[in-house]
């Protein structure tokens, strides 16, 4: 009987990811190269934004991963809490730095995009502000992992921090909305009714949207590949530590 929990066994996880990782990594490379080349060189310039619109191919996928990486950590922390699978805790640990870097990429590309469009590198817009706060949450989470020596205690404490942090992150998002209205446009890639509705101009045109989806697929695969790779490294680190401890005992 195949169950997803089988892969909570590190040996099985390693065996599976050994086969899956190259495929995912290759897929990420293909999608990203194709999507970025398509997006950067084969799409027309926007009639108002000129060529700066093309930063969307980095900005949107990175922002998407930045948020979803936290969800991955949240789910992995819950699984660790409920079922005590070590692989799950390690996935949460592995996802954090990737998410933090994606948040940083989204912030930096956003600033580069904002400078010609809004005339400023930074505004205290709700979306920008909550991303900055999300970045701080990532930093705290990573720092807590690094600071605690005992691996199980570290996994438990960071899991609690992730759960409490999620509540506060959502709370901050709404608090920030309350605090200031922004310049950033709303979600417009997949707006319902936009295709046939009267606000077609409000939606990202298909010419831009299709390469964007390829880029998003590439970023998702890249995220998966990095998390799997980092989790494998963590598992190997644990094994080495166990081996060293055994050597000392003998």
């Amino acid at each position, binding site marked *: 009987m195949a169950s997803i929990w089988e892969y909570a066994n590190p040996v099985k996880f390693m065996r599976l990811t050994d086969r899956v990782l190259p495929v995912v990594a290759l897929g990420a490379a293909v999608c990203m190269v194709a999507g970025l080349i398509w997006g950067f060189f084969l799409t027309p310039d926007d009639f108002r934004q000129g060529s700066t619109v093309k930063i969307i191919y980095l900005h949107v996928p990175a922002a998407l991963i930045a948020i979803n990486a936290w969800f991955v950590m949240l789910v992995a922390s819950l699984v660790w809490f409920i079922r005590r699978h070590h692989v799950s805790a390690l996935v949460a640990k592995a996802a954090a730095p990737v998410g933090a870097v994606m948040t940083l990429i989204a912030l930096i590309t956003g600033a580069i995009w904002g400078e010609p469009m809004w005339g400023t590198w930074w505004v205290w817009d709700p979306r920008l502000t909550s991303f900055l*706060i999300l970045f*701080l*949450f990532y*930093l*705290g989470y990573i*720092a*807590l992992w690094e*600071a*605690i020596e005992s691996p199980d*205690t570290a996994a*438990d*404490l960071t899991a*609690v*921090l992730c759960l*409490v*942090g999620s509540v*506060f*992150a959502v*709370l*901050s998002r*709404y*608090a*920030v909305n*309350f*605090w200031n209205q922004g310049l950033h446009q709303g979600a417009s890639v997949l707006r319902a009714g936009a295709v046939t509705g009267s606000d077609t101009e409000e939606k990202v045109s298909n010419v831009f949207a299709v390469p964007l989806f390829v880029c998003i697929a590439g970023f998702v695969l890249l995220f998966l590949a990095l998390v799997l790779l980092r989790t494998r490294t963590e598992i190997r680190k644990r094994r080495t530590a166990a081996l060293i401890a055994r050597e000392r005992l003998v």
Partner: protein
Amino acid sequence: MKALLLRDLKLAFRSGGGFGLGLAFFLIVAVLVPFGVGPENDLLAKIAAGVLWLGALLACLLSLDRIFALDWEDGSLDLLATSPLPLEAVCGVKALAHWLTTGLPLTLAAPVLGLLLSLPETGYVWLVTSLALGTPALSVIGCFGAALTVGIKRGGLLLSLLVLPLYVPTLIFGAEVARRGTEGLAVSGPLALLAGISLAVIAVLPFVSALVLRINLR
């Protein structure tokens, strides 16, 4: 419970306990701000409420690592954990003691410092109200942060890194109440949200802190 509260209060008030440190820090922040931004009364009046909220928050942060660290070092935390008093209550009492020794004095001192920063007359009531409602949340959230980092040597910096993002909603709503009050706008919206945050964290976070302490004491 009462004995624990009195013990914590005594420890804080007597020498080396750090009571007054937060207040002094708060005073210094309020004195330094005009040096940083210039002495124009109009500008100061505009930013006074926000600066005082920020100062109170940082002053609160200063004494957080004392909540559990000393008890952890001399082993009294183990005694507390094995005592008949549930650990959740210990966390609640500790947070209460922290609030009584920092949050409450800060709230009471805020109007005086508001005078220094030429806070407009309309602002005083709302500044004090928002601090009185918001500082308990700061203490309880800080207590959670202190419980998380109790086992870490020199965890003070890490504690601030963990706790400051958690303070964001409280700060936003608290400063918003004070700002709107100062400008004579309606405050009931942010005031209700601020009170909601305080009540929610007081109800929930002591349990989480106790859970975290149990993990650390394992």
